[in-house]
C-alpha cells in the first residue's frame, strides 16, 4: 500500500537558509522582526510597543524601525481563519487596563452550548465533555480580530509590511539575523517580468517567527537548529464557511460522528463546530485529522455533506453563504512541541510551534500569550544589549512556567488515543481530562500524517452534488475565499508529480481548493499530478500529506475578512 511519504517532494530546507546577500548599505535594518501578522505576532508587536513606551531609551537604540512585522497576505487578517471561540485570558493579560473585552471586535461571550453525536439522520445530544465546555469564552472572527490587533500594533509603533513573504532565513555565524523577503513579478517559468521587484534582506537583532500553522521558515528553522520535538508534528484540516442566516443561533454547537466513519482502520478523527456570529451570521466548520487513510476523503465535501443533515440544514435554512476558508491545525500537542523555542537570534511562537490544545479546540490564547512572552524575552535581551546565544533562553523558561505548558501537558496523550477508534478514544479522552491528565495511558508513538498507508474507498460517490445554495463545488468555495492570485507566477507547491494513482487521488480529494488533479497515465502504473497553484489558499495540508507548501508571491492567496 502506498504511503505519501514514499514520494517526497523536491525540496530541502537547506535551500532556504542563507547569509545576507544584499550589500550592507542596502539591507533594511530593524530592531525586532516579527514574521506573521496573526494573533501571536501581533501580540508580540503590541507588547513590545508597551515596553518601549515605558523604556523609550531601548527603542531609540534600535533605530528608525524598532519593530517590523511581515505579513504574506494582502493585509493583516487576510490569511487568518479559526473557529473561533477564544479563551479571553491572554487578551485580558495583553491589554490589562488598556482595553476591556467588550471593546474588542467580538460577537460576545458564548451564550450556551450543545454537543451532539450525529448519525446520518439523527442528532443525539450528549452532555458537553469537560474539555468542550466554553462558558466564559468569547466568539470572534479571527480575521477581524487580526485586523483590530494590527491597528493596535501600528498605534504601538510597529511597522507592518503586508504582501511580503518571508522566503529565506538569514543566518550568519550560527545566528539568525533576519529574513530575506520573496521576489515579486516573476513569470510562471521564473523569469523576470517588466515590473520585477527583487526581495530584500531585512536584518534584525531578534527575529520572531509567528507564522502560524505550517510556517515556512519555522520548518526551516526546526531543521537548521535541530529543534524538532520528541514526536513529529501532525495536523488536522479545518474547512469552514460563514453564513448569513434568517434566524439567530442561540448557542455554540459541536458535533461528533457522522459524516466521519468510526471504523478503526479509517483513522477518521474530528468533528464539527457551529457558532453564532451575532444575530444574523453563523459559522460552520469541519475538522478532520490528517492521519486519515482514505484517499477519497475530502474535508471540503464532507462539510458539504454535513450541511445536508436535517439538524444543520434547519440552522442554515433561508441563509446564504458569504465566506469560505480552510486551514490546518497542528495537533501533535505536548510531545510534538519543539525541543527548544529559541535559537540564537530567534524565537518561535503560537501555532507555528504547535501550541494548540486539540481536545479543547483552542490555540488562539496560547498564540497571544506566547507572543507576549516572546516580546518580553526579546525586550530583556535588547535592554541588556545582550547577544550571546543564550540571550533568549528566558523565553523557554517563561513558556514552561505558563499555562500554555500546564494545559498542553495535561492533555498530552489525547490526540494519540483516537487512533484506537472513535468510541474507545472518546472514552479514554474523557477519562484523561476528568483526571487532569493523571491517568497514564502509555505514550503512543505519533507517526507523521504522510506515513499512513493509503486505502481507497468509494466514499466520494456519496458527496452531495453542489446545488449552489446549500452545497458548493471547490472552485466556488475558492472564489468565496476572496482568492484572486495572479496566475502567471511560479508554482509555489513542491510535490513529486509522478506518483501512484492513489497518492494523486489523495491530494486531489484532500485539497479543499482544487489545486491538484489526477492527470495523465504514465504507463508504468503511475500518473502525473496536474497543479493549479493559483487556487491555493495556503491551508498547509499538502505539507502534512507528503508535499511542501512554500510562500508564493506576497499578496497571493485568500483574502479572508469574516473567517
Amino acid at each position: 500500500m502506498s504511503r505519501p511519504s514514499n514520494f517526497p517532494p523536491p525540496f530541502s530546507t537547506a535551500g532556504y537558509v542563507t547569509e545576507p546577500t544584499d550589500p550592507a548599505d542596502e539591507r533594511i535594518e530593524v530592531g525586532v522582526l516579527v514574521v506573521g501578522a496573526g494573533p501571536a505576532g501581533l501580540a508580540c508587536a503590541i507588547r513590545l510597543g508597551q515596553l518601549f513606551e515605558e523604556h523609550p531609551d531601548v527603542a531609540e537604540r534600535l533605530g528608525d524601525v524598532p519593530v517590523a512585522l511581515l505579513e504574506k497576505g494582502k493585509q493583516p487578517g487576510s490569511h487568518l481563519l479559526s473557529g473561533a471561540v477564544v479563551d479571553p485570558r491572554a487578551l485580558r493579560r495583553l491589554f490589562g487596563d488598556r482595553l476591556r473585552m467588550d471593546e474588542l471586535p467580538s460577537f460576545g461571550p458564548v451564550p450556551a452550548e450543545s454537543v451532539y453525536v450525529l448519525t446520518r439522520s439523527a442528532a443525539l445530544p450528549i452532555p458537553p465533555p469537560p474539555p468542550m465546555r466554553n462558558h466564559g469564552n468569547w466568539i470572534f472572527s479571527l480575521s477581524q480580530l487580526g485586523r483590530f490587533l494590527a491597528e493596535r500594533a501600528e498605534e504601538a509603533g510597529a511597522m507592518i509590511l503586508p504582501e511580503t513573504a518571508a522566503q529565506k532565513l538569514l543566518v550568519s555565524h550560527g545566528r539568525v539575523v533576519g529574513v530575506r523577503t520573496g521576489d515579486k513579478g516573476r513569470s510562471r517559468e521564473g523569469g523576470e517580468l517588466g515590473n520585477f521587484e527583487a526581495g530584500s534582506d531585512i536584518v534584525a537583532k531578534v527575529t520572531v517567527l509567528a507564522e502560524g500553522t505550517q510556517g515556512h521558515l519555522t520548518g526551516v528553522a526546526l531543521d537548521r537548529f535541530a529543534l524538532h520535538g520528541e514526536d513529529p508534528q501532525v495536523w488536522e484540516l479545518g474547512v469552514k464557511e460563514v453564513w448569513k442566516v434568517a434566524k439567530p443561533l442561540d448557542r455554540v454547537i459541536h458535533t461528533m460522528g457522522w459524516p466521519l466513519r468510526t471504523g478503526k482502520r479509517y483513522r477518521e478523527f474530528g468533528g464539527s463546530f457551529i457558532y453564532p456570529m451575532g444575530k444574523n451570521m453563523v459559522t460552520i466548520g469541519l475538522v478532520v485529522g490528517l492521519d486519515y487513510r482514505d484517499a477519497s476523503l475530502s474535508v471540503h465535501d464532507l462539510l458539504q455533506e454535513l450541511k445536508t443533515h436535517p439538524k444543520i440544514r434547519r440552522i442554515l435554512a433561508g441563509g446564504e453563504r458569504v465566506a469560505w476558508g480552510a486551514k490546518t491545525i497542528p495537533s501533535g500537542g505536548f510531545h510534538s512541541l519543539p525541543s527548544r523555542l529559541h535559537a540564537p537570534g530567534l524565537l518561535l511562537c503560537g501555532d507555528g510551534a504547535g501550541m494548540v490544545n486539540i481536545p479543547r479546540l483552542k490555540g488562539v490564547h496560547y498564540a497571544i500569550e506566547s507572543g507576549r512572552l516572546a516580546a518580553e524575552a526579546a525586550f530583556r535581551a535588547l535592554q541588556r544589549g545582550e547577544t550571546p546565544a543564550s540571550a533568549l533562553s528566558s523565553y523557554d523558561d517563561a513558556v514552561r512556567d505558563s499555562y500554555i505548558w500546564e494545559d498542553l501537558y495535561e492533555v498530552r496523550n489525547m490526540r494519540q488515543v483516537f487512533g484506537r477508534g472513535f468510541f474507545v478514544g472518546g472514552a479514554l479522552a474523557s477519562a484523561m481530562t476528568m483526571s487532569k491528565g493523571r491517568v497514564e495511558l502509555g505514550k503512543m508513538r505519533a507517526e507523521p500524517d504522510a506515513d499512513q498507508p493509503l486505502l481507497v474507498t468509494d466514499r466520494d460517490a456519496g458527496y452531495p452534488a453542489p446545488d449552489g445554495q446549500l452545497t458548493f463545488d471547490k472552485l466556488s468555495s475558492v472564489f468565496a475565499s476572496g482568492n484572486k492570485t495572479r496566475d502567471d507566477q511560479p508554482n509555489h507547491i513542491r510535490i513529486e508529480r509522478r506518483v501512484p494513482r492513489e497518492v494523486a487521488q489523495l491530494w486531489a480529494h484532500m485539497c479543499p481548493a482544487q489545486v491538484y488533479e489526477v492527470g495523465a497515465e504514465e504507463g508504468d502504473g503511475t500518473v502525473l499530478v496536474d497543479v493549479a497553484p493559483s487556487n491555493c489558499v495556503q491551508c498547509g495540508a499538502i505539507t502534512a500529506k507528503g508535499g511542501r507548501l512554500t510562500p508564493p508571491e506576497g499578496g497571493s492567496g485568500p483574502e479572508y475578512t469574516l473567517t
Partner: protein
Amino acid sequence: MSTLVFLEHHGNELQQGALGVLGKAASLGDGEVGAVIAGEGARALAAEAGTFGAAKVWACEDAEVAQPLPQPRVDVLAQVVEEGGYDTVLFANSVLAADVAAGLAARLDAGLNWDLTDVALRGGDLVGKRPALQDSVYAEVGWTSTPRLALFRAGSFDATAAAGGGQPEIADISASYREHSTAVQLEGQDAEESSGPSIEDADIIVAGGRGLGSSDNFTLAEELAKALGGAVGATRAVVDAGWYPYSAQIGQTGKTVSPKLYVALGVSGAIQHKVGMQSSGTIVAINKDANAPIFEFSDLGVVGDLHEIVPKLTELVRQRRG
C-alpha cells in the same frame, strides 16, 4: 419630455449604437426627438436620422468639430440644449460619446447616468436600468433635475427604422467654442492595424475550455472565431495547462469582456470564469456535460460533442457569410 440624441458618425456612416438609442427615444413616444450630428458631412446624414425617428436634426459642420474630439462637441451640445430647450440628452457609449456626455454633465451641472441598458417612462418620470457589480445587481436609476443625461451601454438597442419616420427638419448650427475645448489637436490617425480584434474590443468571442480536450483542438475555436470575425479567448484551466497564452485568459484573474456574442466551447462555467464574461450580450455554450454550470447563464445551451458540432457550425457560418 423633449429629447436630444447625440448621433456619432464615422466617415459618412451614422453609428448603429447611436441610431439604436435614437430609435428607443422615438419609441418612448413622449414629445419630439431631436438629434445632433457634428462634424464633416453632418448635414448629408440628417435625412437618415429622420428615418430612425428624429423630427429635427441639428447639424454642425464647424471646422472645430472636424476632428473626432469630445470637447468642442460639448460646446455644440450645450448650445443646442439651450436653444432647443431639451430636458433629456441621450448618448450611445463610445470612446468619443462618453467624454462628450461627461463634459456636458459638468458644463450644465446635469445628472449623468451611465452604462444603462434600457430606459422607460414611469408616471412621466424617466427611469434608467443599470446593471452593476459585474451585472450581479440591476439598479433602477433616476434624475433629480433636468437636463437629464444618459449614456447607454453599447448594443443596448437594435437600430431599426422608426414607424412614421420621415424627413426631419434640419437646423444648421454654429457654436461658440471655449478656449480649452479646441486645444487638443489630432496629429495622425491609423486604421486598425491588427490581424483581428483583440479580446477586449471584439464584438464576438469564441472561448475554449478544457472540454476542447487538447491544445491542438484550439484550432476549432480559432476557425470558428475567424468565420464569425471574432477573437479567441480561453479559460484559466487551459491557460494553466499551457494550451493557450495567458493574454487570452478571460475571468477573475484574466480579462473582463462583454462582447455581443460569446461562444463557449467546452467551458464548464466556474464562477471565476463567469465574472469575466457574464455581461456578454448573447451567450452560446456547447458542452457535453449537461450539468455544467455554464448552461445556467447561457442563452442557448447545446449538450453535445463539440468536436462534431463545431466544424459543422464553422462551415455553416462561412457559407452564410459568403
